[in-house]
């Protein structure tokens, strides 16, 4: 049996605002196999984004065990986290995914530049992933010249360029109309099926539910499989 790509045991996360404590995660257990296309639903404030940030190595767990693709994130240091973000995961947010002063191609290339690859090589790969998301003809456009749906697909392309094992998406369709939503989900589904990339998506959108292989509900900091 292949080891799960995400393995979480009793993870807790508390935020502190001055004297106010918010328990965002109240002992989350999770196990997700490689190649899944998982979606997390749940009310606002339930802790979805918090969980995604922890799994993506952007934030740290308070206590518990969190392993993603063999990396123990609960005990990783800052350098290991940077490396993890760079090499293993891609992130797609609801909005503001791209640097406005760079064109689409250069935005896509950023993770490779962070890795230290040459600009030439990065751009060559960048063109390939732009082709994969069907936006090769938009390579010279700045984010401001692209539609919301196109921006999200560029963000997906940027996530793909490092050949990640896991792509995390936080309400990726939140700002999109139904047509763009369908386009984006088609892209994600085909990447999941053809390249075997694992996706974990936090969303409120019921319409995309049918694409999921695994469904979760997150409420009051507790994760349940549905």
């Amino acid at each position, binding site marked *: 049996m292949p080891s799960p790509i995400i393995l979480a045991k009793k993870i807790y996360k508390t935020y502190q605002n001055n004297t106010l404590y918010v328990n965002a995660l109240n002992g989350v257990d999770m196990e997700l196999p490689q190649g899944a296309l998982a979606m997390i639903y749940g009310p606002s404030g339930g802790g979805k984004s918090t969980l995604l*940030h922890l799994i993506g190595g952007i*934030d740290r767990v308070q206590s518990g065990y969190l392993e993603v693709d063999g990396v123990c994130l609960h005990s990783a240091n800052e350098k290991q986290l940077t490396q993890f*973000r760079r090499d293993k995961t891609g992130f797609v947010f*609801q909005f*503001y995914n791209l640097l406005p*002063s760079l064109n689409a191609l250069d935005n896509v290339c950023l993770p490779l*530049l962070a890795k230290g690859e*040459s600009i030439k090589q990065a751009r060559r790969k960048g063109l390939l992933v732009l082709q994969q998301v069907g936006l090769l003809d938009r390579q010279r456009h700045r984010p401001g010249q692209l539609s919301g749906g196109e921006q999200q697909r560029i963000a997906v392309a940027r996530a793909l360029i490092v050949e990640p094992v896991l792509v995390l998406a*936080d309400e990726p369709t939140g700002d999109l109309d139904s047509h763009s939503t369908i386009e984006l989900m088609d892209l994600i589904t085909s990447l999941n099926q053809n390249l075997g990339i694992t996706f974990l998506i936090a969303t409120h959108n019921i319409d995309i539910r049918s694409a999921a292989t695994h469904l979760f509900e997150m409420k009051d900091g507790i994760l349940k499989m549905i």
Partner: protein
Amino acid sequence: MKLLYVLRFLINHIVRDWLRSTLTILSLSMIVFIFFLSSALISDMGNFGNGLIDVPQTLIFMSRNAMLPSDSQINTVDFDSYQTAIQDLFGAHAIKQSYTKIFRQLHYDGRSISLSTLTQDEMQDGADFFLLEGSWPNKKQEIVVTRAFNTITEKSIGDTMTIYGSEFLISGIINSEKWMAAVIFMPVSQAEKLYQTEGIFQLGFIQLNNDVDANLVQQFLETNLNDGDCCSVYQDDHFVALYRDAVKGIRFLARILQLIVLFLIAFGSYNASVLVLNEHEREIALLHVVGFSPKVINGILIFRLWILLFISYLLGYGLALIYSKWYLSNLRLAISGNLIRLEITWDSFLLGAGLIFLFAVISVWFSLRHQYTKNIHVSLQKVFTGRVG
């Protein structure tokens, strides 16, 4: 290659942010401008004080009731009696030389300018005076002027000027470390004729021979020959020290001004850095997410601030140069005849450049320390979940 890429990216970035960038550059360049002017002022003040040479063993005589040299009135009879007294007490060879100067303060072209006489001895290159251009006065109605006079008034050799109703021709420009101010010099005989004050002058000088104790002579004269109005006796090096002290005050003020300016530059670059961090928090967070290490992000931010500071610095420098040029050809302010040149020097350029680039590193480091150690996760959350506070 990579550096160029980052440079292009950052310039692009700065240009896109043009309004904020322009304001930052303008305010920083004004501070840089003041930095250069205050540096120039300090070196001007330094020149005034350091240019003075003191002639040892020299006593200066001025009327006891005079505040300024030009108020002094000494007659030959009194001055002679001092010399006789010195010779009586300290020996016939106690005095090396003595001479007198007529000294006036003129108003010329809206400025206060000194007029002094030259002895025959002084009218040849010596310790005190150097002829820079032209010749010493050798005809009637000829004068020489100092370089400062020449610069301040733009009167030069061959020009004439009216003094006390008479026309004089400038025959030469001289330099003297002792007379750095704007001064007109004429031979004693001409001055006596011009002012019709034969037997009366403003300043008397007695240089003593080396084996005579100048302090002792001064004390003796001050205590025993102080009847009547004549004279206060100073020692030349005391005079110089007094002058240096006066200039030191102004120099100190200019230094404080410069320190304040340096502080402002440091503060300004810190401000610019914090501004960038806040305004571009999302972009910084994004760089973080895609895997740039804090170190690299720091480097990019320092580089960005450097570009801004570099532009501001060049702009401020350019403005200071232009102002300095304009000032020298139009304003030419002087402190008691000492020209303030406001010369923008290469030294201050390098000093300022070094300091400013250091400030940039420190301020980015400071502002980022805060960001990374405490806030990076919170800031990411804030940015990507649209949650504020």
